[in-house]
């Protein structure tokens, strides 16, 4: 098993009512598995919200395997400026 930190911002924070989650996953679990878990926890509140994945503070272009201790964020549409 591995543990990852999920950082939650904006709509994700609003949907899950927390800014950080510690989640245990099977070894070899990937970002899309984790995204599904997060979306399930949001209980529909993230339906239709596009999320980009960042691992260890970098956007990843595709699905990657997670490692123990990774920091993951599912980034809802940004609003800077």
């Amino acid at each position, binding site marked *: 098993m591995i543990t990852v930190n999920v950082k939650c911002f904006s709509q994700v924070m609003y949907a899950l009512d927390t800014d950080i989650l510690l989640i245990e996953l099977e070894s070899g679990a990937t970002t899309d598995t984790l995204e599904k878990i997060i979306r399930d926890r949001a209980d529909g509140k993230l339906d239709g919200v596009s999320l980009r994945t960042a691992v260890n503070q970098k956007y990843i272009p595709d699905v990657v395997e997670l490692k123990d201790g990774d920091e993951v964020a599912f980034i809802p549409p940004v*609003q800077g400026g």
Partner: protein
Amino acid sequence: MIHVEIINGPITPFPSDNSHQDDGAELVFNGRVRDTEHGENITALEYEQYEGMAEAELRKLAEETMQKYPVHNLFCRHRVGKVNVGEASLHVAIWTKHRKEGLEGMSWFISELKKRIPIWKWAIMEDGSRIPSECTHR
């Protein structure tokens, strides 16, 4: 030269001095908080960042802009925390030889910033409530 900063508190503009002997064009943008969001009156926006990643992405974007356009200097300050109506949340200064590339570089930099820098905003309404602001992506 690149200078990017994410700061909590009022933005001090970058100095506009006479030291740029080969830059004919100096372009400065201030993005200010308007008094309405989706037609409703607000008193402020509160900006939230992904600490660390936001500044790193901003630096990466500044580097890309300088690769894509002949920009000599790109300075940017983005504010987080509560920003009252009328105040600047974003301050960008670009120095180029000619104005054309400055205008293009500025336009591209801000468009991309609004697509990829992990910063979000919450609207502070007149009654004091705080609601997530919708994404506009403009």
